[in-house]
């Protein structure tokens, strides 16, 4: 709208309200206008989000050695090699377990938490602030702290667990538990950490959804003699659905792409026994770049499916921005 600055103010207003006026000379400039304002943003997205997809697919069809030297076109060899790996199946199963357990537990814990934070009680603001800590802190930092707290001899979790007799109950008597030393228990703890770091965002999203429900609906229900539980079932649950679906999909995305938790706690090991497909992709990089690219493309398809679901469910078209 640079060219408007010289014209008198009322004229500019008229033009603004009618938007498209027939000024043939300025038409081209006008049509180019979005490019000045949006061009930089578009360039950044194109260069860093769209181009890498092309590079990734291209790499997966090449024969590139670990030093990075390109030996030419390899067709679908990388994909065939990837799917022939005996380790791929357990990795995929683990990824599914990881996704379902983390996301469902997060949603189930976040809902009562959000209900709790939606009530008035003394110190509510302080509790809200406490939830900020895992959200603001780098996930990898939180994972490192948990790794420290899970140390067999000196870790806080073992010390407290022993003091409370919890470890005794699950059959760990004399020796302290080496949680991260065994793949199964390590994976369970990673799931717990993933839930821990996913809770704040999920809780706040559900809370925002609850606060958007008009209070008079609850008052009307109260007048009609509805119990608190009935109001929750009949009002909160259905009206919270959009927020819950959005939180669910964003969580699916974050948890699927989650790398730092597993990486910092076990490096995906021993071997790849605690790796999900995202960590496995990173591990593959050191043995075969094209296979890592092929794994990325497979992961990318999963991510794309989640994005499409998000676009369909989030109802963005109905919103007026």
């Amino acid at each position, binding site marked *: 709208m640079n060219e408007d600055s010289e014209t008198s*103010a009322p004229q500019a207003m008229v033009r603004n309200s009618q*938007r498209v006026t027939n000024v043939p000379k300025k038409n081209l400039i006008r049509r180019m206008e*979005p490019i000045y*304002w*949006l061009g930089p*943003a*578009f360039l*950044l*997205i194109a*260069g*860093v*989000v769209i*181009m*890498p997809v092309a*590079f*990734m697919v*291209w790499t997966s069809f090449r024969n590139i050695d670990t030093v990075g030297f390109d030996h030419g076109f390899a067709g679908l060899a990388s994909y065939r090699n990837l799917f022939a790996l005996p380790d791929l199946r357990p990795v995929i199963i683990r990824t599914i377990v990881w996704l379902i357990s983390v996301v469902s537990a997060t949603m189930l814990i976040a809902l009562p938490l959000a209900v*709790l934070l939606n009530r*008035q*009680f*003394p*110190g509510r603001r302080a*509790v809200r602030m406490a*939830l*900020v*800590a895992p959200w*603001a*802190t*780098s996930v*990898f*930092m*939180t994972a*490192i*702290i948990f790794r*420290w707290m899970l*140390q067999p001899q*000196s870790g806080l979790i073992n*010390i407290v667990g022993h003091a409370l007799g919890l470890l005794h109950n699950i059959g760990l008597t004399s020796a302290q538990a080496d949680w991260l030393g065994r793949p199964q228990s390590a994976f369970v703890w990673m799931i717990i950490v993933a839930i821990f770091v996913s*809770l*704040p965002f999920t809780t706040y*999203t559900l*809370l925002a959804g609850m606060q*958007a429900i008009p209070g008079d609906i609850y008052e009307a229900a109260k007048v009609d003699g509805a119990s608190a539980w009935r109001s929750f079932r009949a009002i909160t649950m259905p009206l919270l659905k959009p927020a819950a679906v959005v939180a669910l999909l*964003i969580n699916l995305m*974050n948890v699927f*792409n989650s*790398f*730092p938790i597993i990486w910092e706690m076990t*490096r995906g090991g021993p071997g790849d026994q605690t790796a999900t497909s*995202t960590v496995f*992709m990173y591990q593959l990089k050191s043995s075969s770049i094209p296979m890592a*690219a092929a794994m990325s493309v497979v*992961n990318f398809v999963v*991510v794309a499916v989640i994005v499409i679901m*998000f*676009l369909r469910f*989030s109802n*963005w078209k109905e919103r*007026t*921005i």
Partner: protein
Amino acid sequence: MSIPVVKEAVRTEGVKRTRHRPLSTRDWLLSIVAYIIAAVFLVPYLEMIVTAVSPTNQLGTSRLFPSRIDFSNFTSLWSLGLGTNLGVSLEVAIGATILVTAVALPAAYYTARKKFRGRMFFLVLVLITQMFQPTALLVGIYAEFSHLGLTDSVFGLVIVNSAFNLAFATWIMTAYISSIPVELEEAAFVDGTTRFGALRRITLPLALPGIVTAMIFTFIAAWNELVVALMLTTTPSHQPLTVALDGFIGGYQIDWGHLFATSVISTIPVIILFAFIEGRVVGGLTAGSLK
């Protein structure tokens, strides 16, 4: 998208309305449950601080608290070269914040104020960027950036972090700007102000909460970023703090004292910064899909 400015006003009003109600026993019970939950969320970070101020010879023993507080980890970490990594992290985070603001603000202003061809396309593109994460594109980013010679550089990390935080910034700024009535700007035109004068004196100050939220969020996200930097930087002096700390974990003997002293320095300011914008972040992350 709903109007955040108005929503904030309504929220504070709601708090005032219910404040008069006396607290019942049930409320007190609920608050105790809430305090316990809050404590659980804080324990790891308190443990981080406790470990950082413990004398080295008391680490790895089964005591919960050290017998004395020792700040030597904080004074000696600079000799490990971590100061350089801290500097790289600052450069990347500040660079990304500036670039995101410079790119997202005009885009958000134009999208909020104009109907134009390709507007929907732009919004969907931004929404898709919002959903994708650099992890999913890691191999592609690496291939492209090594092609362009952008590995091991601050600039490379700045543009990656900018691109992936652009969506959040654009959404939240667009929401704030569209919640400001056009009439306010038009009134300024009547008074003889130019378009940019109106933008500077009316739109920007009113949209400031959104802009500040976007800036703080971008700063924190870039500051915390690990995966891309792990892939793109190899020279120790070009690595941000997250990658340097990841190197601690990879070692045979983990130097927990320095690891957590550095973590405290890089984490606590971020938590405090985040606390300022906490109330506005959800709207940007869910791309306004919640009414």
